[in-house]
C-alpha cells in the first residue's frame, strides 16, 4: 500500500451529530453511497472513507441538512508500513457502556 501522497489527504468521512439531527432524511437522498435511513428516518452512516469525487456529493449533503447536523472530517490515515516516527496514540478516554 503506497497511499502516501495527496490522495490520502483528501479522503474524508461523513459524520452526524445525533443530537442535532431531526431525521429529515434529506442526506440519504444526496449521499446514498454512504448514508441510508433506519425505519424511523434517522441516518445510518457508513465508516467507509470517501474519495474526492464522492466528497463533493458529501459537501452538498452537508450544506443541505436543515439541522446543521452533518459534517465532514478527514479520514484517519491508513497506518504506513514503516512509520518515520512512533505514531501518536489516537485512542482517547471514553465513557463507554458501563
Amino acid at each position: 500500500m503506497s497511499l502516501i501522497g495527496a490522495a490520502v489527504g483528501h479522503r474524508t468521512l461523513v459524520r452526524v451529530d445525533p443530537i442535532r439531527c431531526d431525521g429529515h432524511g434529506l442526506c440519504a437522498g444526496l449521499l446514498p453511497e454512504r448514508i441510508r435511513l433506519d425505519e424511523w428516518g434517522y441516518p445510518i452512516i457508513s465508516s467507509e472513507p470517501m474519495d474526492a469525487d464522492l466528497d463533493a456529493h458529501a459537501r452538498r449533503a452537508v450544506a443541505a441538512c436543515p439541522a446543521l447536523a452533518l459534517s465532514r472530517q478527514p479520514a484517519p490515515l491508513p497506518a504506513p508500513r514503516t512509520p518515520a516516527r512512533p505514531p501518536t496514540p489516537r485512542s482517547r478516554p471514553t465513557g463507554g457502556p458501563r
Partner: protein
Amino acid sequence: MTAAPLVGSRTAPSGTQRLLAAVRDDGQPMSLAEHLARFGRLPTNRRGAGSWLVEEVDQAGLRGRGGAGFPTGRKMRTVAAARRRPVVLVNGSEGEPASQKDALLMQQAPHLVLDGVVAAALAVGATRAYLVVHEGTNLDGHLDRALTERAGLDERVEIVVAASAGGYVGSEESALVSWVNGAAALPAATPPRPFERGVDGRATLVVNVETVAHIALIARYGAAWFAEIGEEQEPGTVLLTVSGAAAHPGVVEAATGTRLAQVLAVAGVDPDRCSAILVGGYFGSWVPIDAALRMPVSQAGAVSVGAGLGAGVVVALDERACGLAETARVMAFLARSGAGQCGPCPYGLPAIAGAVTAIAHGTARARAHGDLERWLRVVPGRGACRHPDGAVRFAASALTTFAADVAHHATHGPCSGAHLPAVLPIPDRRSTGPRPGEPATWGSR
C-alpha cells in the same frame, strides 16, 4: 492526634481489604481522627506532587471503576497537560440501581474519598474539584460535614459537593459537566470530550468515587504496593455489589483475578439454586451460572464470558425467577431513561423493550423476533452517549442466556417465574429522566 502524623508512615493495608479497611464494622462513618490514625496524612506536600502522582497512578495500572475501565493514569496525564488550569469532577452519582459501592465509600469512608479528590486534583494541577452525588441520597450533607472536619488540614483544593437531579443518563460524564456548567444534565455531543473541554471550558478529569479512593491509597503506598495483588494487566482490588438470591448481599472487595464463585460464596449465594448472574449492571450481561462461576473478576475476565465488569454489579438470579420478565422491566426502565435527544435511542429502545416484553409475556408475534434482531443491530453506536449501546448489550445477552426460555414462552406462554416479585430494582418513575432546567442545588462549603 495533635502532632501532624508523618507522611505515609502508616502501614499499608495488607490482603484484599484495602478500600474496605476504611469502612468500620459497626456501620458508623470513620472520623477524620480515626482515618488519619489508620492511614496517615496524604503526602501532598511533596514537591512536584503533580507529575509524581500521575506517574504513580499510571505505573499502578489503575483503571476507572465507573464502568468503562479506561486507564486512569492516561486520562490524568492528558488533563494535566492542558494549557489552562484543569478541573476535577468526581462522579458519585452511582446511577446504576443495583450498585451501592460508591455510596458505601462516601457514607462510611468519607475521608478516604475526600483524600482521593484532593490527591487527584493536586496530581493534575487543579485547585477546584466537584464531587457530584445523586439528589435525595443525603450524601451531600454528610460529605459537607466531613469537609468541615478537614478545615484544619490546610488543603490547597477547593471541594464543592453538589447533588444532581439527573437520572440514569444524567450521571454520564458529559451530562454531569453540562449540569455543573448550569445547563440541563443531558449528554452532550462529543468531541470535545470533557477531558478536552469540560467545566468552565477547562480540561476536566471525570473520575468515579471508587477510582479516587484507590488514588488516595496509591498516593500513600505507591504503585508497586497497588500492583502487588490482582491480575497483571489490571491489578489491585475492585468493589462488587452483590445482590439478588444472596443470603448476605452487600459490597465485596476482591483482588482482580479472583473467581466470581468465591465472591458469590462470600455473599451467601447458592449457585445450585441460581440460573444466571447479571454481571456489570443494566449495561451489563446475563451470564449463565456455570460460566459465571469460573469468571475471573476483572474487565478481561468478564469479557472472556461475553460480559463486561461495568461498575461491579453482580446480581444472582434465583432459578425460579424469570430472566426474561426481569429483562423486560429493566429494558422499559432504560427506554424511558434515555435523554430523548438522538433518534435511534428514543425510538429504538422502546421498540426493543416492547419486543422483549412481548416475548416474556408469551404474546410475541412471529415477526417480533426478526424485528428485535434487526433493532439490536441497528440501534447501538449512534447516540451521543453510550446509553443505547449498554441497553442493547443487556437485552441481547438475555436472548442468548435465556434462549431456552424464549422458546418455551413462545409455545407455552409465560413461566410461573414471571409472577414472582421482581429481583432487579427499578428506580421510582419520577426520578428516572433528567429534568431540564432544574436549578443546581449546591452543597454549602
